[in-house]
């Protein structure tokens, strides 16, 4: 009874993972043709390619923007929805809707919203600034392309963090708030000294998961910008896709895949370390 799952996980997860190490040391291609051992050449080639560094810098930039925006908004919404507001289940249901929307659909919607020059977002920007800020070519301008991707990504995914925060908030014992209130703590002090410490585990978990997901940024890039304009939204996975799938260079792409794995592993190890710290 254990066998089917073991076979499937071995064949389609363990084997490709283990194989990617030797493959990354060859010049193997996706189409069958003779290949040879090239040592660490692929790693040298990747690590000396300015486009790869640009991609790595871009995902770092993306992560630095999306993690605070998405988690901050999710926490704010969780705090708001955790109160006794009439119809809060309805609002929670509505606020979670983007999270069940497929990224492909999200791209169709936001591709429309970002339309240059007369799309809805540009109209809003024009309206709010009384026409002083000209229309922005959201996805077409290297300066705004990554912030635009951050915006749609945060919109799509914050619902996940929101419900996790909500679960965390509901685990904080009510008597802690009662005690703080008796001590005369202000709303801010209760948030600072009861809510935040109570959410410590949740916070670490949410931040790490969001960071890992951010480093794997791909779908919205592939559909909306293909990494452009001028590589301003290129990411590590999009880079891997371009060299490995479009360029058919399996060996080179495997080297990128292993670098990605090492990054994700390091982030996970940080999580383990931080969480073990105080248990």
């Amino acid at each position, binding site marked *: 009874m254990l066998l089917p799952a*073991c076979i*499937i996980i071995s064949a389609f997860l363990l084997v490709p993972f283990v194989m990617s190490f030797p493959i990354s040391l060859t010049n193997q291609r996706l189409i069958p043709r003779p290949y040879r051992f090239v040592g660490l050449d692929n790693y040298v080639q990747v690590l000396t390619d300015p486009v790869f560094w640009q991609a790595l810098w871009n995902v770092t930039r993306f992560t630095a923007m999306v993690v605070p925006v998405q988690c901050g908004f999710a926490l704010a919404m969780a705090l708001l929805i955790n109160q*006794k507001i009439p119809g809060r289940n309805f609002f929670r249901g509505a606020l979670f809707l983007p999270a069940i929307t497929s990224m492909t659909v999200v791209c169709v919607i936001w591709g429309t919203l970002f339309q240059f020059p007369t799309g*809805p977002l540009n109209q809003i920007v024009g309206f709010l600034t009384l026409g002083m800020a000209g229309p922005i070519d959201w996805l077409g301008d290297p300066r705004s392309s990554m912030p635009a991707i951050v915006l749609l990504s945060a919109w799509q995914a914050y619902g996940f963090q929101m419900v996790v925060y909500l679960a965390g908030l509901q685990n904080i014992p009510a008597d802690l708030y009662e005690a703080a209130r008796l001590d005369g703590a202000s709303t801010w002090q209760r948030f600072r000294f009861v809510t935040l410490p109570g959410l410590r585990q949740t916070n670490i978990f949410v931040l790490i998961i969001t960071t890992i997901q951010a480093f794997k940024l791909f779908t919205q890039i*592939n559909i909306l910008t293909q990494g452009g304009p001028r590589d301003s939204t290129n990411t590590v996975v999009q880079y891997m896709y371009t060299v490995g799938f479009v360029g058919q260079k399996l060996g080179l792409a495997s080297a990128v895949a292993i670098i990605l*794995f090492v990054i994700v592993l390091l982030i*996970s190890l940080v999580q383990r370390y931080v969480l073990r710290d105080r248990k």
Partner: protein
Amino acid sequence: MSSATQGQSGPTDKFPVIKFVSIAIISLVIVSPLFLLIVASLKPDRFQILAEMGSFKAFIVTNPTLKNYGDILTFSGNQPFARYLVNSVIVLTFTLLGGMLFNSMAAFVLAWGRLPGRAIILTLMIGLYIVPQESIVLPLLNIMNNLGLADSFAAQILPFWASPLYVFLLYQFFSQIPRDLYDAAVVDGASPFEIYWKVFLPISLPALATVAILLGIETWNQYLWPLLVTQSNYARPISVGIAGFFGADSIYWNLAMSASVVMMAPVLAFYLMFQKWFVSSVISSGVKG
């Protein structure tokens, strides 16, 4: 009661109107892009969609029509949308059937079986969970090519019949079931498979529903893997199909809209019916450290 004491009595009682209004406005803003999509899909052609996108007309449709839906389902040419839809349903159905069975069987054995290497297998599974799908897809594509499974349904179904995450989630649930239940079944002379099928599965519906929802959404929305493994329309799913509609140029803007609504509709319907389960599934997928 003075307003001062009311202010002291806690966050729940302060500014109820302001809180209600702000949450209502925020919810409206958050949901509006989805509303916009549905409204746009009901407009007769792409010119009207684009022309009205920049004004409040984007939220109103004066002459609603289902024309785009008819068009999308009968659209053939290079992008047979109806075919993509059927393909997605096929992939979803078979992924769920196999995935539910194999993940839960493995979890049952890991939780209750008397297998020598149980702990090692479990550790290996948890270790493999860290490996991102993104970093194995190209070697996996190579394997599929070598197996002659490129551009097939099998390539989109087989790899998802078992995953460390779902085995682990079900394992956690099964391990919490009281020992007496298992022992009683053993005394009754039930075989391991019978215990799994007749005793454990029926009382594990919450855990099974969680896995079904997560696996179902994951399969339906999957993008990277089908993008790589489907080279023709033969087995291409809806997610990759819509991207094709949208990516090339905006000629089929109206169709991309209606296609998106069609893709979203089943998920939305399930969500509205089983909202609580959706939310708890998402939480449990996360809470494993």
